[in-house]
């Protein structure tokens, strides 16, 4: 088996040795052109700059890939630096004469080159936390300039990025601050307006009133509040309002009933408030509603706004209770409907009698209400007198204004709280940004500035020659292979035997004559001469071609 393998190798290269001159001439031709070119080729130089990211946490690692904070930062900065805008900056710095309008082709070419494979190279060395920036070019000065320009672009990019991040955050906070400041100013101006009005009024009222006004304008909590008089006044207002509404309803009802009596028409249903007034459920619900309403009044007297969550809660409960009363009323109505439908069968006279009864009841209601209202008024008069307050409309107005001022003051306090909070946040952020900016400047340190390279990159010529050699050998071998494969003659006895299936009696070696030999050597010499000539030619004319 091994012998066969060895033969295979020889057979594989054997075809080349059958046409040695093809390989030789291809090598000579290609290598002479390559060597001529190599003599005149422009060598590349490389300039390098080193940047380190110091100061940031060295122990921090993010994600499973174990990227350090520095690496993430480095990657981000690298990407941002090689953005189109920065490349243009670098180009204007290094090649000021090449502009987009002046020489668009060259500009484009340079731009593509800088961003492409043969352009600015940035490599972040994880182990030493150093960013290497390098650039290769045939002109050593250009190399250095490009790397220098890239470093400054990188520093710029780093600073602007940090600044941008801070600016957006701060801007938002500043907006909010302005918003709250406006509200505060609004409230303050409202308060000031009321105070001005009161101060003006002070000249035209009595002594007691003046005292009250001065207390208000000085911003002190009035004695009225401490005595709970404000509370009672608010309570009084609400109660009288309710009673008045009830009075109005009762009077309306009476009117309707009198109309009905006058017209002589009696509908099948008569709404009787009495029915569900006396119902126990309704009574309970009404009691609860009254309790809640009292609670609301209390809170309002303490200065809470109508939109306060506690007040809203109570209002909701009141609504619910009112709904329940409605439902109950409807239930009862249904019952009364049944009852009244019996009434419909009754004669007109009986119905009229019923209506009259109802009218009488309603009149009684009205009287009761009126009494209640009078009683409340009495109470109020007593209380205000007890509190040593003259019951003048001016006093009432002033106290209303005072209440309003208190409301506004509470609002002001709340808004001031928001505003202070935002102001604190803004200050913090501003401080932080200043620190970060300072840090950003320190974080990037240029360890090594790029120098003008004195020596070109090593082994460029040798590399090119080697490539030429390999290529020429390959070409030679492939041409030899092609020629071999085109030759379909018989070369060995085994081939012949295989072809004709007839035995080969014998194989005789080649007999060559002197003439053939002479022709062969002549051919060989001619080829050698030609190749030598080609070599010399390439040497001489290489200067002009490359």
């Amino acid at each position, binding site marked *: 088996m091994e012998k066969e393998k060895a033969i295979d190798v020889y057979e594989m290269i054997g075809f080349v040795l059958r046409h040695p001159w093809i390989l030789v001439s291809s090598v000579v031709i290609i290598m002479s052109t390559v060597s001529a070119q190599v003599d005149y080729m422009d060598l590349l130089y490389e300039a390098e700059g080193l940047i380190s990211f110091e100061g940031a946490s060295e122990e921090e690692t993010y994600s499973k890939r174990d990227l350090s904070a520095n690496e993430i930062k480095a990657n981000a900065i690298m990407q941002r630096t090689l953005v189109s805008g920065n490349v243009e900056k670098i180009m204007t710095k290094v090649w000021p004469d090449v502009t987009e309008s002046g020489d668009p082709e060259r500009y484009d070419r340079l731009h593509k080159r800088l961003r492409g494979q043969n352009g600015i190279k940035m490599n972040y060395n994880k182990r030493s936390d150093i960013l290497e920036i390098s650039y290769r070019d045939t002109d050593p000065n250009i190399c250095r300039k490009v790397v220098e320009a890239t470093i400054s672009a990188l520093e710029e990019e780093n600073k602007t990025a940090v600044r941008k991040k801070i600016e957006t955050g701060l801007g938002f906070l500043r907006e909010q601050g302005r918003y709250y400041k406006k509200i505060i100013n609004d409230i303050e101006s409202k308060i000031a307006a009321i105070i001005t009005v009161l101060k003006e009024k002070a000249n035209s009222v009595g002594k007691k009133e003046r005292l009250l006004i001065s207390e208000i304008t000085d911003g002190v909590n009035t004695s009225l509040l401490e005595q709970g008089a404000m509370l009672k006044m608010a309570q009084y207002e609400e109660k009288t309002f309710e009673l008045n509404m009830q009075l109005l309803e009762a009077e309306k009802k009476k009117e309707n009933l009198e109309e009905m009596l006058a017209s002589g028409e009696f509908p099948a249903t008569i709404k009787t408030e009495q029915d569900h007034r006396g119902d126990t459920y309704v009574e309970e619900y009404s009691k609860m509603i009254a309790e809640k309403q009292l609670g609301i009044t209390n809170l309002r007297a303490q200065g809470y706004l109508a939109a306060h969550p506690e007040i809203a809660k109570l209002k909701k409960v009141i609504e619910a209770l009112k709904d329940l009363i409605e439902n109950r009323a409807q239930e009862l109505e249904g019952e009364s409907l049944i009852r009244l439908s019996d009434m419909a069968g009754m004669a007109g006279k009986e119905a009229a009698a019923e209506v009259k009864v109802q009218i009488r009841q309603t009149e009684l209601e009205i009287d009761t209400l009126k009494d209640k209202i009078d009683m409340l008024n009495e109470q109020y008069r007593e209380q205000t007198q007890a509190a040593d307050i003259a019951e003048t409309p001016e006093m009432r107005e002033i106290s209303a204004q005072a209440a309003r001022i208190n409301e506004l003051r509470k609002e002001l306090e709340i808004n001031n709280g928001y505003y202070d909070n935002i102001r604190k946040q803004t200050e913090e952020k501003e401080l932080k940004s200043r620190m970060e900016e300072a840090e950003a400047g320190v974080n990037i340190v240029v360890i090594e500035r790029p120098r003008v390279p004195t020596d070109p990159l090593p082994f460029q010529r040798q590399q090119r020659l080697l490539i030429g050699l390999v290529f020429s050998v390959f070409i030679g071998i492939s041409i030899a292979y092609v020629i071999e494969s085109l030759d379909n003659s018989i070369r060995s006895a085994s081939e012949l035997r295989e072809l004709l299936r007839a035995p*080969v*009696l014998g194989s005789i*070696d080649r007999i060559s004559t002197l003439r053939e030999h002479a022709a062969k050597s002549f051919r060989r010499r001619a080829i050698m001469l030609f190749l030598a000539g080609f070599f010399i030619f390439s040497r001489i004319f290489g200067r002009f071609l490359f």
Partner: protein
Amino acid sequence: MRYLFGRIASFFTPPVYVVKKPKAANGVDGRILAYTDNNSTIAEQYRVLRTNLYSFSPEKPIKTILLTSSQSEEGKTLTSVNLAYTLSLDIGKKVILIDSDLRRPAVHKMLGCDRKPGFADILSGKADIEYFLSKPAFGNLHVIPTGTIVDNPSEMLSSGKIKDLLEILKARFDYIIFDTPPVINVTDASVLGSICDAVFLVVKAGVTPKDMVEESYNMLKRAQAQPKATILTNVIIPIHQYYRASYRYYYRYRYGHGRRV
């Protein structure tokens, strides 16, 4: 420098025999190595060929041999002369070589003898065969050259006279070798081949395309002259085979006059 280059180059090229003298003393072609340089490797190869011929068909001995090839310039004349001479060297064997290529005779050139009178004359009755059979023209080898060139060689060869001639020759000789024109060009070989015991196809390595060889083989087969074997000439052994020990031994065993190029 040139010497060094030559030495290095010769390492990569296998040995090829170069005939120094194109024509030997008595007009014999230098390439008849069986005669001029009997100790050379090529002469040895002819002897191998002879041995193979002896053992080729033991049950039915071959007397009449026809050598032909697919196209011209394949070395059939050279091979036939060399083979005939090598056969004649064997003491006790009587061999006669007949040049039946009536269009381009070559045997007389190789052996340095006259073309006429020859085979064509015998067939046309103008010459007597005894003239050729009396004494060997070349060493121990009897030769009948072509003779007068005629217009209708194919007709002459297909006449009945050939059969009579063969009868006479078979009685007197052990081996009768015919050298004929190529198969593809003319039908002489096919015609003659049908009356011979064995037809051998001479193939020149590196020159004859495979399809042509196959075509000539088929043509002969159709004419009832199927070649029993082939002879391969102009073989150059590849270097990797040359450098195998056995070959090296084989080639260096006999010192030859030829030099490596």
